């Protein structure tokens, strides 16, 4: 256990965290503004990854692939919002969960039908592959470092969008009181579609960015979706700041727990027990974190009191 390993793992945790943030930001905005539980978000992530893989293999350009990912996911988002989800805003959460669960089935099987069951691969572009040497002599993959920077930049941009622009004011007003801002002359249904498309685009981007370090396959979205839900519940639903802090907390807990809990158990018991008990606890650690946060603050860290 060296300092270098710890720093590497912290960076890995950050990388997971910022990618989760891209997912969680959209989810939390959609929930905050429209009051909608959107299980389809994982499918949008998957659509982004598949669009990126398809465009990258056609054109060979990673940048085009990323643009295609965002565009495809945002378009799918707009389609879903206008056709289905618009009808669900004033329904209870049960109907929303069920309808978006149905959409997951349609999207997953549809993707399997178009692309087949075998995973696709999306390559890291040459300029971004290979390791870099960080101060202190730590070798770290350049691509993962770029992911951290891109994710943080998007977080800053999103923060500026929400706090500084006219659109951001409308979004925040929509979170507080949708009837009033509709009465003040804001086209609420266009605002909803825009927020949904924005969230979908971010999910698609996350799918494409992560798709380059994992394989692109059907069902890749749901584990991330559940992690993103954990993130927004920890951070407090509706809060972008909460989503960022929650995402980094979850990313770090997940990554560091997997490495250090078995080591920690090793101090007390024999190797085999330590490894199995440690990894069992590590895989549960983020849910334990979430449970603890909710018991301490039932509306999350930055949530409004329900």
């Amino acid at each position: 256990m060296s300092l270098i390993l710890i720093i590497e793992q912290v960076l890995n945790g950050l990388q997971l965290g910022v990618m989760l943030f891209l997912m969680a930001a959209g989810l939390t905005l959609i929930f905050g503004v429209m009051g909608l539980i959107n299980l389809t978000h994982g499918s949008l992530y998957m659509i982004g990854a598949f669009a990126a893989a398809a465009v990258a293999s056609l054109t060979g350009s990673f940048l085009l692939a990323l643009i295609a990912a965002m565009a495809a996911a945002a378009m799918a988002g707009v389609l879903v919002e206008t056709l289905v989800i618009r009808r669900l805003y004033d329904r209870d959460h049960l109907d929303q969960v069920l309808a978006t669960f149905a959409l997951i089935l349609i999207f997953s099987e549809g993707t399997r039908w178009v692309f087949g069951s075998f995973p696709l691969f999306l390559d890291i572009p040459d300029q971004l592959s290979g390791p870099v040497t960080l101060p202190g002599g730590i070798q770290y993959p350049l691509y993962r470092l770029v992911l951290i920077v891109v994710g943080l930049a998007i977080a800053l941009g999103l923060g500026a969008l929400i706090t500084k622009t006219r659109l951001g004011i409308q979004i925040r007003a929509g979170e507080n009181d949708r009837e009033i801002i509709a009465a003040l002359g804001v086209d609420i249904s266009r605002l909803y579609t825009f927020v949904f498309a924005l969230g979908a685009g971010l999910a698609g981007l996350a799918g494409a960015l992560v798709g380059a370090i994992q394989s692109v396959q059907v069902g890749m979205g749901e584990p991330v979706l559940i992690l993103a839900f954990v993130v927004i519940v920890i951070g407090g639903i509706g809060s972008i700041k909460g989503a960022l802090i929650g995402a980094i907390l979850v990313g770090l807990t997940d990554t560091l727990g997997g490495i250090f809990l078995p080591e920690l158990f090793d101090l007390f018991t024999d190797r085999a027990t330590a490894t199995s008990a440690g990894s069992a606890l590590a895989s549960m650690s983020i849910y334990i974190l979430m449970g603890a946060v909710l018991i301490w603050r039932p509306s999350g860290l930055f949530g409004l009191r329900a």
Partner: protein
Amino acid sequence: MIREGVVNAFILALLVAVPVWAHFNDEPFTITLATRAVIFALAAVGLNIALGLGGLVSLGHAVFFGIGGYAMGILAHHAQTFTPVIEWPLVIEGTKSMPIIWLVAVTTSALAALVIGFLSLRTAGVYFIMITLAFGQMFYYFTISWTAYGGEDGLSIYVRNSFPGLNTLVPIQFFGLCLTALVIVLLMNALMARSAFGLALNAARQVPQRVEAVGLDPKRMKLVALVISGAVTGLAGALFADLNRFVSPTMFSWQMSGEIMVFVILGGVARLFGPVTGALVFVMLEHFLGGLSDYWHIYLGALLLLIVLFARGGIIGLLCGRQAVHD
């Protein structure tokens, strides 16, 4: 509109008639399919107690289903390997006897529901949905890394467990056992819905403030409902494990929770036979559409979407009209 009692009687008659017909025409697969439907129905009736009566949208009922399954898996595994479950402080042997397994399944899942409910009921709305989902994931990942009982591969049981006086290896006898369990639980459910507790719970779902004002504790009633609900779903889990003679972490997966919820909503929330109808239709769709196309989930998704958007009372609601009392 048809009266609900007529529809219920028809469904029950169908559940008896089809397997009996299959038995005399030597179609064991149909009986297995019916058994699967009945067990799913039982799990969904369990969820309906929390969801329909208590208004608790639990997206983590796979926890109880899985605990029931693992209760069976662990006890039978120790019985077939002739090892004790624990040796200290007292020796507990495994067992292949269904009544004991059911008792363990029901008690452990009720206990789990008590703990989960105690923690989760501090929250409400979306947070409740999410925290129950998180508990489900917690158990899922725990069993995946629990190598003592097969980890990700699960546990296989070679011979179906026994029930005194019956040969459970005969499909129709095992089916009869499952159907009896379902009918008893449905009776209990009907009695409970009309009992003082059921009425108070119903009121607590609709206007908790008023219930509190007359001196009842809505949170405590919801906790009791969740415990009963968890115990029923746990029993279904034990039966499901016995049907397949196999348990694995998939019983804890969130898709399982989603499916149990789909049964309830497909059939009709808060209707006595809603979950039964939903599970029956789901298993039939799975069988027939699955035979037609590998991508049958697309059709299932589309059907589900249509039900949510245009037929809000589920199938029972379509047939019998929507209930007057509905929030």
